[in-house]
């Protein structure tokens, strides 16, 4: 429970921003606009993180999602010039709509039906403690994550290498 009119206003504003921009991703006719709406949604979610006083994660979210992932998607669009950039739907859009609405109904019912063990005591994990946790009790998943990232990096590079480079490799 977060008191005060400031956070409440912020919450409603941010949720409006995020949901509208997510809607924008669906509606916009141009794929490039869709990515920009997605960036807006990421910024909205970073705002939520701030609201939940997880500052370091909000900054990390902006650096990683807006700084790298959104830009990666823009690069993918630029590198595929003749693929359709019109952001149209497949024929499965209508069944997908039913699935989504059904899932939403189930989730919302579950959320509002159970009474969560709320607590007013605000214990917030600062960046320092998060670091100590990551390298303390969670050090094994941390190492696994770094292995995963390296594997993904090498995999992505191998996938995208153009045949000329491969031919050059074989000649050497």
């Amino acid at each position, binding site marked *: 429970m977060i008191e005060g009119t400031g956070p409440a206003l912020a919450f409603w504003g941010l949720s409006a921003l995020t949901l509208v921009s997510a809607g924008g991703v669906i509606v916009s006719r141009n794929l490039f606009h869709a990515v920009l709406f997605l960036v807006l949604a990421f910024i909205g979610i970073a705002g939520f993180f701030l609201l939940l006083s997880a500052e370091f994660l909000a900054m990390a979210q902006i650096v990683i999602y807006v700084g790298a992932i959104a830009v990666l998607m823009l690069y993918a669009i630029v590198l595929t*010039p*003749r693929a359709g950039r019109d952001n149209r739907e497949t024929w499965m859009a209508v069944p997908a709509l039913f699935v989504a609405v059904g899932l939403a109904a189930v989730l919302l019912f579950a959320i509002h039906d159970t009474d969560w063990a709320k607590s007013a005591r605000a214990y917030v994990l600062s960046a320092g403690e998060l670091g100590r946790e990551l390298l303390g009790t969670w050090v094994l998943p941390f190492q696994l994550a770094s292995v995963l990232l390296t594997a993904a990096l090498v995999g992505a590079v191998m996938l995208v290498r*153009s*045949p000329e480079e491969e031919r050059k490799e074989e000649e050497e």
Partner: protein
Amino acid sequence: MTEIRSEPFVVNIGPQHPSTHGVFRIKATVDGERVIDAEMVMGYLHRSIEKLAEERTYTQNIPFTDRTDYLSSMSNNLGYCLAVEKLAGIEVPPRGNAIRVIMAELQRLASHCMAIGAFANDTGAWQTPVMWTFRERERILDLFEMTSGARLTCNYMRIGGVAFDLPKDFVPACRKVIERFPAFIDELHGLLSENEIFIARTKGIGVITAEQAINASLSGPMLRGSGVAWDIRKADPYCGYEQYDFDIPVGENGDSYDRFIVRLEEMRQSVRIIEQALDGLPGGPFRTEVPLALRPPKGEAYARVEGPRGELGYYVVSDGGPSPFRFHIRPPSFINLSLLKEMTVGGTVADAIVVLGSIDIVVGEIDR
């Protein structure tokens, strides 16, 4: 795996572009940053000077030669006058020759200043070398203005000698300008040729082997950059160049960097020539009188001059009338440009611009 369809992407390094040194266009087919194919489009500045010259008398053609290569008007005038003098068998007095040598070498300094400044600007040194070289070039243009009245298109040389004698205070002023030059060249040397980024941008870019250069009949700094020691002033001396002692700078591996240091060294040699010419400036007449409506005997003549960009040739055919039957110019830039395709293909767009800067073209001379 089927063949990969990559998208060639035609980029116009177009007629209106900050670093094509005038109205000149390269249609570059580009895959990403790499240039696959480069096609040159020229002729935007064609004024058909060679046809116009056939309507005018020999003396009236001299201003045309200023406007073909507007950066070295003195050398162009000299070339044309030598051709007509060879055709009509006119002797030039020694003072005329000495003044011609001084003017041609001063013009080489001014033109090389422009070339080096523009080349450094193409590699990205944001205007600083250009401003320095233009400061020095201004001093030389003041000398030209003092003698011929004009800075760029001087129209100073006449058939049989020069238009007017040197003004009294020309020699001291010229000495003052020449004394500063070696210090300025060392300054440029420090700023650019020892600058790692400049070396990284120009070393190994646009390489021409000596054999390629000779086959494409290149001349001037382009040829000397590839290691071929060939200079018209030594090979086929004119205007008394054999009296002066100077060297030919020769590069090693024919890349843009070598052409740059060859031009820098040539400026030093020109300073040496001018000093020797100023010391031994003979007295006497500066021009042999030639009738205005000169009618040279029927026949043809070809005279060549070592212009700042290379071998500048003038081929004049006379049918005995007051105006030449045929008037043709051998423009060094046009011929130096023939290897542009081999030099740019394979490099990036940025390299293409640097290579074009190292060739040092003047569009007025290419399109004539």
